[in-house]
Structure formats: structure tokens, C-alpha cells
């Protein structure tokens, strides 16, 4: 699908020197009708230069802000540079670039499009407290959004311009703030969400932790993040300035 929409791929990277280059190379080969912005989140290794060598446009944060901080910086960039759509993609190669188009296509039906792991494609499985946490998150979000959402902690998400504006206003740097809090607040602001099934690949660097106590802590922290986000006052999403109508 070719479109006249201006699209930005936001890739937050923190000390990903070893993998960021190959992720970018692959992404640039597959995704041709979008610009790429790598947000170097205060890396202490050569992430920024590795990304530049691979041909990416790089924004360097002066120090580490956390995923949420890096992403908000990316969304502020997208907003100020007039992008119509932005999609966040992990630097560790977990998100398949060939699915970028599919996730972006979800924006035809909603303000936010989530590439979800449990929606049929792929074979990602979890058990124990982590599974309970995901079940809790999924049920709360499904109720709030009015559509079935199975993987709200997925970092493979696309936003239209209205959502980009919302994210520049509310995108917490807290733990889970980049996924749970920002999404729930956006939904409560009246933005719509759609879920697109995607297969995720194993990360190229490092294995995700499956220690039970870590999973339990994860459950507690998700519940806490939910509680905070759910009890926060609703602020309706701002309407876009009308100058975009001409574009």
C-alpha cells in the first residue's frame, strides 16, 4: 500500500549496540514509505553511531530517561515535524519489520493500533503470575476500550496524529507507564484502539525473565499501574488544529 501520509518509525534504543544495526538494516529494506527515527536513550555504548552507520536518523537523549521517556521524545518529534502516523518498533529485533505495514493499516479503523502476540499469530506463551497479570490487564482494557484486547503490554504500536498529540501530553516514564498507563489514559480520553495479530520473534539480545518472583512483582506492579491510571481524572483528547485538513 502506498500512501501520501507521512509516517515515522520510532525506535527507542538503550545500549543496543550489538543488535540495533541489523534491526535498522532489515527495517530500512522492508519499510520504504516511512522515515526512521532512532531515539538513543542515553546509551553508554556505541548505539548512536551504530544506528547512524546503518543509515538511521538518530535523536540522542542527554541521559537515560527510560522507555517511556524515549518514546515521548519520539512522539514530540513526530508531532513537531508534522507526521501523520507514528509506529514504535523495538531495537532488539523482536518486532518483525514485515508486519509494520499491517500494524499501521490498523489506523484506518482506529486511533491506536496494537500489534498483539496472543491474537492468533505466532506461538508466544506464558504461564503463572505473568499470565495472570496479562489476563488482568487484558480484561480491564477490553472493558475500557470496548474491543477485545489481548496484549496491551506489546510495544509494537502505531498512533495517528491525534494520538501522537495525546502522547506528547501524557506518556509517563514510570515502569509500565509506556504501555499500560499511556494506553489506558488515551482510551479514557476517547481515542479508539484496534488490535492486529502479529507474530513476534525472540529477542536477538538477552532472554526475557521467567523467574516466578519477578513475574509476581510484575503482577503487582501492573495492578498498581492500572489502579493509578483507572482512578485518574479523564481529560478528553484535544482536537487537532484544522490546518491539517489541507494535507
Amino acid at each position, binding site marked *: 500500500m502506498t500512501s501520501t501520509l*507521512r509516517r515515522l518509525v520510532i525506535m527507542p534504543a538503550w545500549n543496543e549496540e550489538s543488535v540495533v544495526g541489523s534491526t535498522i538494516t532489515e527495517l530500512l529494506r522492508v519499510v520504504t514509505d516511512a522515515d526512521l527515527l532512532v531515539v538513543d536513550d542515553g546509551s553508554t555504548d556505541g548505539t548512536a553511531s551504530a544506528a547512524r552507520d546503518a*543509515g*538511521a*536518523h*538518530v535523536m540522542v537523549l542527554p541521559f537515560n530517561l527510560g522507555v517511556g521517556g524515549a518514546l515521548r*521524545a519520539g512522539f514530540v518529534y513526530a508531532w513537531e*515535524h508534522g507526521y501523520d502516523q507514528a509506529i514504535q518498533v523495538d531495537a532488539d529485533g523482536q518486532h518483525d519489520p514485515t508486519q509494520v505495514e499491517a500494524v499501521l493499516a490498523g489506523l484506518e479503523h482506529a486511533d491506536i493500533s496494537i500489534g498483539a502476540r496472543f491474537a492468533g499469530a505466532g506461538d508466544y506463551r506464558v504461564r503463572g503470575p505473568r499470565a495472570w497479570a496479562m489476563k488482568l490487564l487484558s480484561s480491564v482494557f477490553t472493558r475500557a476500550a470496548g474491543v477485545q484486547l489481548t496484549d496491551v503490554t506489546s510495544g509494537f504500536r502505531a498512533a495517528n496524529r491525534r494520538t501522537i498529540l495525546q502522547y506528547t501530553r501524557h506518556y509517563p516514564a514510570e515502569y509500565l507507564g509506556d504501555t499500560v498507563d499511556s494506553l489506558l489514559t488515551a482510551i479514557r480520553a476517547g481515542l479508539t484502539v484496534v488490535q492486529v495479530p502479529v507474530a513476534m520473534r525472540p529477542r536477538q539480545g538477552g532472554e526475557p525473565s521467567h523467574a516466578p518472583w519477578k513475574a509476581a512483582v510484575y503482577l503487582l506492579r501492573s495492578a498498581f499501574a492500572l489502579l493509578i491510571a483507572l482512578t485518574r481524572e479523564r481529560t478528553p483528547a484535544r482536537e487537532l488544529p484544522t490546518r491539517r485538513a489541507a494535507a
Partner: protein
Amino acid sequence: MTSQLVFGAVAVVVAFVLFRLLRAGRIREKYAALWILIGVGIIALAAWPGLMVELSHLFGVAVPSNLLFFAAILLLLGVALHLSLEASKLEDEVRTLAEQVALIRTDLDDARATATAASDDGTDPDRTRG
């Protein structure tokens, strides 16, 4: 009587140190105000020992020192909370600044690269936007 002198001395020292810090501009008034208030309170209590007993009768506390401890804990809790709030606000402001600096630097680098490319005539300097 000795205890009165000790408390009085402590209060005076605290007030003096705060005053000097404030004068040197090393502590902001909004933080100092609370401490000065506490200092004044301690001086009042030291100068007028009967006050504590009166107050504890008023609040129905049997042992006056317990009222003192309760008040002290409450005050310290307030101070700690205030500092946490200020720290959170500062972190938020720092985050926004970092974002803005990164944004400006990125745009500046782009503008420079474009200018260099224009003067060198030809070579594409970077993946350009839009």
C-alpha cells in the same frame, strides 16, 4: 531547667544556621519557611514549659512528651512528603528539558548537514525527512 536550656540552645542554633543558609542563597525560602516555623515552635516550648502540659490536656493526651513526639513525627512526615513532591516535579521538568535539548540538537544537526550538503553541492548527507 537544664532541659529547657538545651532545647532553647538547639532551637537558637537551628534558627541561626537556617538564617545564614537563607542569606547565602543556599536554601530556597519555601523550604526554609517550614524549618523556621519548627524552630520558633521549639523555642516557644522551651521558653514556656507549661505550654506542652496545657496542650496535652487540651488534646486528651496523658503524657505531654507523647504529644510532642506525635507532632514531631507528623511534621517530619510532612517535610519528607514535600521533598518527594518537589523531587518529582524537578524530575518531570528535567525530563522535558532533556527532550527539548535532544529535539533541538537533532534539528540543528540536520540543518547543518543540509547546509554542508548545499555548499558541497551534491552528496546526500543523511536520511532526510519528508
